[in-house]
């Protein structure tokens, strides 16, 4: 390396640039989160104050949270939702990484056609298929069961598509080394592919969990039994014919957002683990 890199910025200039970007990010982040402050504000207000435009409640109260957690079996709903979300996420990650890997890397006849067929299921959203799906699930005897909540929620082409794209851009060299070593595909999948996909799996774990945590239409349709309610169904219950108990709704929504936030903070670190690619160039 005989050529000296041209000095583009002085150290001070580089720091200033960085601080400016940080400020920009901060401003954008505050703007993003600002509307949610209304949610927090209402969660601490009494019913008469809800629609006043003040962000700081005149008479802050914890009553809404107390009501939600004691008058309504909210802990049960939180548990239900948590259970369903975890099971779906784990199984889905497992199945989708397998399928994504095969569709990206393995050669088999009809691969692209199969992928397109699988992707085409992404083109129909739930309202379109909900009636036949309901009939199907009912004939399987899965109405009002956890299985009925979990199984249909696992299968969604979104994750398969994303993982396929991700695996497409993985450097082939590591797999090829394993294949030369005589490893079977299952082994390659477990010891090479899965560890390499940590960032994307972490991202998908968050997204799958979130999708199930905040799911509404399917749980509402398949589980009429209040023992199986998930949190979003329970929250919609605070709305009656002409009005809604917005203070309870917001308090409940705040409670529901907290585990999600925790999960996010934990997992997002995983996304940031970059792949060690030394030795490949």
């Amino acid at each position, binding site marked *: 390396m005989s050529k000296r890199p041209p000095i583009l910025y002085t150290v001070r200039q580089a720091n200033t640039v960085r601080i400016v970007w940080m400020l920009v990010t901060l401003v*954008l982040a505050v703007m993003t989160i600002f509307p949610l402050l209304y949610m927090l504000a209402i969660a601490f207000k009494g019913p008469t104050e809800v629609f006043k435009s003040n962000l700081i409640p005149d008479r802050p109260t914890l009553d809404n949270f107390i009501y939600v957690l004691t008058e309504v079996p909210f802990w049960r709903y939180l548990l239900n939702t948590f259970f369903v979300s975890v099971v779906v996420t784990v199984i889905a990650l497992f199945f989708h990484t*397998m399928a994504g890997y095969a569709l990206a890397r393995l050669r088999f006849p009809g691969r692209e056609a199969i992928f397109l067929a699988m992707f085409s299921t992404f*083109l129909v959203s739930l309202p379109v298929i909900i009636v036949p799906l309901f009939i199907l699930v009912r004939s399987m005897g899965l109405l009002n069961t956890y299985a009925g909540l979990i199984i249909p929620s696992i299968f969604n082409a979104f994750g398969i598509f994303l993982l396929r794209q991700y695996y497409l851009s993985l450097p082939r060299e590591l797999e090829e080394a394993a294949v030369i070593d005589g490893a079977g595909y299952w082994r390659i999948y477990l010891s090479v592919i899965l560890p390499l996909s940590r960032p994307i799996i972490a991202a998908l774990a968050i997204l799958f969990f979130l999708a199930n945590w905040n799911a509404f239409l399917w749980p509402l349709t398949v589980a009429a039994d209040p023992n199986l309610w998930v949190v979003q169904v329970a929250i919609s219950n605070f709305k009656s014919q002409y009005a809604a108990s917005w203070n309870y*709704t917001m308090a409940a929504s705040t409670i529901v957002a907290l585990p999600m936030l925790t999960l996010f903070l934990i997992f997002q670190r995983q996304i940031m683990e970059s792949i060690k690619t030394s030795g490949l160039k």
Partner: protein
Amino acid sequence: MTMATTSQKVAGAKPAALRLSARRREAIAGYLFVLPDALGLLVFIGLPMILALGISVFEVDGFGNFKFVGLANYARMWSDALFWQSLKVTLVFAVLLVPLLYVAGLGLALLVQRNGRFNTVMRAMFFAPQMVSLVVVALVWQLMTVDKLGLLTRLLYSLGLGSVSLLGNPNFALFTVTGACVWFLMGFYMLIFLGGLQDIPKEYYEAARIDGAGRVQSFWYITLPLLRPTSFFVLLVSAVAAVAGAQAFDLVYVMTRGGPANSTALLITYIYQQAFQYSAFGYAAALATLLVIVLMAVTVVFFFLTRGGRFQYE
């Protein structure tokens, strides 16, 4: 093909049935890996989908009465003014939403891609809209845009734009609703881009820096090209979501119910109303079939243009 020659060498020593060529083994592995998802998708989405679309040649009233009507439902679409209106609304919505989400998602990901506690907090803040339920999002936007009192309303007023009703005026409602969707969804796409950005080996950037490339050049010649699979994904998924309504429908419906004056009536909203408010399941199925066909065509074009989304990696 070392493996093939090895197996040929010991050909006589193993029964033919157990001698699987490498190609065959790979194919079998491929099918098995894909099997659980393929089966699940077939049963839980494919089957209902075919059923749902098959209803389109019947007139179904949702109470057990149905009558075969051939293509009458499709003919009805042609002269249905509300259908065309919803098509127009959906198009405008998609054309606005997709680029905005792409730019917002990628932009935010670039801003927060470095590690550190500051960025961790920033990421959580950008993702926060995703973590709250739709009913919260709808209410919060209602409060911010309500006439006279809403924060955004007052902001626009103080900027000299007069008293604009952001969700109550048919000329503005669609834009407001699109804005709300971008706000709601950008954290989602930011996350996906973060995953994709991590994929790019750091060595490339270092090499570029050593060669004297500036940040913009790095971005243009390294980041963007290597992000192609992710970009492809984001563009296609957000386009499908905008049109087929996976993420957008619930939000728009809860905020405006398709109003004011049908200015935010997406096609998926129209389908939903036909099915669940008017009990016209046959017509709703015909509309949905049309939608799927159009989306399928768009998807096929996308895939064709990008050689199956594989870019230069195959």
